[in-house]
């Protein structure tokens, strides 16, 4: 078993909570997820870069903990769950200012479309030829975590 993949072993080997999002099933999987991560990395305003990194660092283990009960004896690899967190978080951040609001709407709309598509599609269609299948729960939980991570910013804005 890969020592970096997210499995139930993560309770004994906590690094898996982070590294599970870094390892992938082959280069195609890696490349596709890199594109997904590239969008928030490139579009984030300069003043929010540090916040984006903090959200990624904190959300990774939380997302892993949310996925663990459903994994059983299986394993999870991939960064797209984390990408969903960052898309949701950045989408909300961009909505806050009038200039960037259309971009934020575009990001959130695109993500919503993906989540709706995955929820409607039969699970067997998400099985890949390489011997693994997409876990829609990772994307759903990622979006939820992204929403939750916007709360501190809203709270600060309201206090200001």
């Amino acid at each position: 078993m890969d020592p970096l993949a997210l499995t139930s072993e993560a309770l004994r080997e906590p690094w898996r909570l982070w590294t599970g999002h870094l390892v992938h099933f082959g280069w195609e999987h890696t490349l596709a997820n890199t594109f997904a991560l590239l969008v928030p990395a490139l579009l984030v305003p300069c003043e929010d870069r540090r916040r984006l990194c903090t959200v990624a660092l904190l959300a990774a283990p939380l997302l892993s903990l949310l996925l663990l009960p459903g994994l059983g004896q299986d394993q999870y690899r991939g960064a797209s769950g984390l990408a969903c967190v960052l898309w949701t978080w950045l989408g909300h951040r961009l909505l806050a200012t009038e200039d960037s609001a259309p971009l934020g709407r575009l990001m959130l709309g695109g993500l919503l479309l993906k989540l709706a598509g995955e929820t409607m599609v039969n699970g067997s269609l998400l099985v890949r030829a390489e011997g693994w299948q997409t876990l829609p729960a990772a994307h759903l939980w990622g979006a939820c975590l992204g929403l939750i991570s916007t709360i501190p910013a809203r709270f600060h804005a309201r206090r200001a």
Partner: protein
Amino acid sequence: MSRSFRFSLFGAVLALLTLGCNTPQTTTRRSSLMDYLYPKQQNAPAPNPAGARLKLPLKLGIAFVPGGSASWRVQNLMAPGQEKPLLDVVKQSFKDKPWVADIKLVPSTYLRPGGGFENMDQVARMYGVDVMALVSVDQIQYTDPRWYSFTYLSIVGAYVLPGDANDTRTLIDAAVYDVASHTFLLRAPGQSQLKGSSTWAYREVQLREHSAKGLQLAMTDLAKNLDAEVAAFKAEIASGDRKDVDVVDRQGVSLRQSGGRNFGGSVSWIEVLGVLLILGAALRWRRA
């Protein structure tokens, strides 16, 4: 000095030289799994054609296989009280595994030499375990004299000069069996080697210390290897290579059928196209 006296003196010196000079010595501690499970007088029982069906989480029993018929060269396997701390090494490294419900340490005194599967079944029933890990030991200790070991003849040298080169090699092997079907599941080795020097007077003390330490190190190595073997075993079942064994998880899903599911967080290529479009639009809009 009479001739007979000189002859006796020469004989005494020769005897002293012969007895006093250090000679290579080998000590063996051994227990054999084959002797325990398949005693020579019995035919090996045929394996259950239905194979093993393991229901997770497992109740695991660990025991040292009792030593066989000891020859004058083969010493007792281990000192009283040494067994539990050694088995604890394996227990500690497996107690948090999700597939383990409980680990029972079975004293080897409950296992009869040459007891076979019948004896294993009795012990497994007594401890209520599904799977038994039988640990066999092969430890050899070599003591070789160094060139200056002749100084032992001076008595003082035997207490001062370390003229013995001691080498302790330990090999521990754990074989895991399904109790219900007597199916062999997996095996893992653990080994260690310790070297040291001692005086003639301290030789036995050092050999005992090295024996205990060697077993401890080999057991730690075994725990590590066993972990890797379990992962390989699981992969073999998932890929269908082990047709004689199936594992059923807590949800009742067979590992053979599920194939050890791999989940990935992924973005399809159509989605990647959408992502690139969004990225392109955003960068163009920003520039404008």
